[in-house]
């Protein structure tokens, strides 16, 4: 996605330089506030790492093609968004200055398109938000994929806008956008998978290297497993047993709609199948309309709330046990077959 100088007019290039310079200024300010001498060498070596990692071809399963790494999302997940942004500027400058990859005039636009979105949207928004209650493999996978897709979609959108604003191509906006976005969706997915694979590896081997790990990563859940179950059980009893006494007697949304059309909330059903279903329900429903069969009382509502909650829990556990039973049997057969 490195833009060449020819794709930008001087005005657009200058604007993008200004935007990138402002963000770089903010990042430098934040790094200076941190006052961590060790961070600068780490940023330098991490930049060299990203540059080296971009040389690796990742084979994409089932396509016969291969993908590459951009790296800004990964850098943010390791160094933080500000340090990641500055490191990405270093990477893009070396690519531009030493390898003529991306134009000198277009450097500001390239920094914005490839570093800003990855570091500040992918890192500061998505990664930080998803990891606020601690890290897990699934969260890392989701944040990496989402972050990389967002980064590449926004980057591709910016490329389209910048090129059109420069008056370089005669392609209509819609066609240009339709050409750019889908391909970058696929690239973003591959980049996200690569980033996730590396970050999960890091999480398992050296989790302290990940950004925000010390602050939130090691946070244990506020309640233990048993504690969560106890809180849920108490909540169920309170809601089902006490708060159910104060439920509204007004019809719900569907009943209200039916009443508006027919004038009544209870529709009469005719026909054999309806009669049969009604009979079955009258036998099985021990607590019709959440009260005793014999009469309407507060005790009946409370009892209905509590017993209903217990029945749901028992049913869920039963379903889980049945699924586990069949999975174990199926799994054993599979293993036997292999042996």
């Amino acid at each position: 996605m490195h833009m060449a100088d020819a794709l930008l007019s001087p005005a657009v290039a200058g604007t993008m330089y200004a935007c990138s310079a402002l963000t770089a200024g903010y990042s430098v300010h934040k790094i200076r506030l941190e006052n961590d001498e060790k961070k600068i060498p780490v940023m330098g070596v991490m930049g060299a790492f990203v540059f080296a990692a971009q040389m690796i071809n990742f084979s994409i399963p089932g396509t016969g093609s291969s993908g590459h790494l951009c790296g800004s999302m990964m850098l943010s997940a390791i160094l933080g968004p500000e340090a990641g942004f500055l490191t990405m500027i270093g990477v893009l400058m070396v690519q531009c200055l030493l390898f003529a990859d991306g134009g000198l005039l277009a450097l500001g636009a390239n920094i914005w398109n490839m570093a800003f979105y990855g570091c500040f949207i992918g890192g500061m928004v998505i990664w930080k938000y998803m990891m606020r209650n601690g890290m897990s493999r699934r969260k890392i996978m989701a944040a990496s994929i989402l972050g990389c897709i967002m980064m590449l979609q926004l980057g591709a959108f910016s490329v389209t806008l910048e090129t059109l604003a420069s008056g370089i191509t005669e392609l209509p906006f819609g066609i240009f956008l339709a050409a750019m976005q889908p391909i970058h969706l696929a690239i973003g997915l591959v980049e996200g998978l690569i980033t996730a694979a590396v970050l999960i590896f890091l999480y398992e081997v050296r989790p302290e290297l990940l950004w925000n790990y010390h602050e939130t990563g090691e946070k244990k859940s506020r309640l233990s497993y048993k504690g969560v179950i106890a809180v849920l059980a108490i909540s169920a009893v309170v809601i089902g047993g006490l708060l159910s006494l104060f439920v509204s007697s007004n019809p719900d949304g569907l009943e209200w709609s039916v009443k508006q059309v027919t004038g009544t909330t209870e529709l009469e059903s005719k026909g054999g199948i309806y009669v049969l279903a009604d009979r079955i329900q009258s036998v099985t429903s021990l607590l019709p309309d959440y009260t005793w069969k014999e009469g309407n009382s507060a005790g009946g509502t409370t009892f209905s709330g509590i017993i209903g909650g217990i029945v749901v829990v028992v049913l869920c556990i039963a379903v889980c046990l049945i699924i586990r039973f069949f999975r174990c049997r199926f799994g054993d057969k599979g293993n036997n077959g292999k042996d």
Partner: protein
Amino acid sequence: MAKIDKAIKDIHTADNTSERNNSVHPVSWLLVTIIYIIAVVSFQKYNIAGLAGMVLYILIQCMWHEISIKDMIKRIWPVFLLTVLVGIANPLFDRTVSAGVLSMATLILKGIFCVTASYILFTHMGIRQICYALRILHFPKELVTILLLMHRYLIVLLKELERMQLAYKLRAPGQRGLHFKTWGSFVGLLLLRSIDRAGEVYDSMQLRGFNGTFQVFPERYNTVRSVAYAAVWCIAILALRIFPVFEMMEAAIWRILNLGV
């Protein structure tokens, strides 16, 4: 593997060429190149005759500094493809087909000229000189330090990667790229090695009195030559931008021929 080899070779070549005795100040070089690029991209999209005159800068620089045309074409190739891709729709969507072809040709020429100008600049300026110029232009010292460190450890990490890739290829012959099951462990190991190396680097730097930034020392540049270089080229580029050199040359040739007849 070839890509890594090429990258290492490019870095070595850039370092070696920059070690030549270059008496022109890097800021003069940078200034001339930026003015040239701005002049090139500022041409109207149908003004191919005026744009063509800008080739003179490239030709003179190439002859003056004995730059390999073969290497330059290799650099230009990806940008040529990119500009063709972006401009290919111009003949279809522009006012007329011929106008579209003109705007496409202008776009391609702009791309080629800009990359060539950047290439000429950086074959004559090593990373040390670039960083020195950036410091003079008041770039943040943190950024300059990152650049210097990156350059210093780029070759080390590229060689590390080359060894890892060779080992992988020997164990997985005929496989195109890195298998997705090893994405995490392969790149993760490279990352861990890099971070460990960063720690060692930091320790050794501290022992040598590192205080957070690298000092980029000025080298001996010829001030008069640097100013003259920048002034002459800036005037020449502005002249090329304003006057359509080739059209004027053509008119002059016709006038001479007519006088002869």
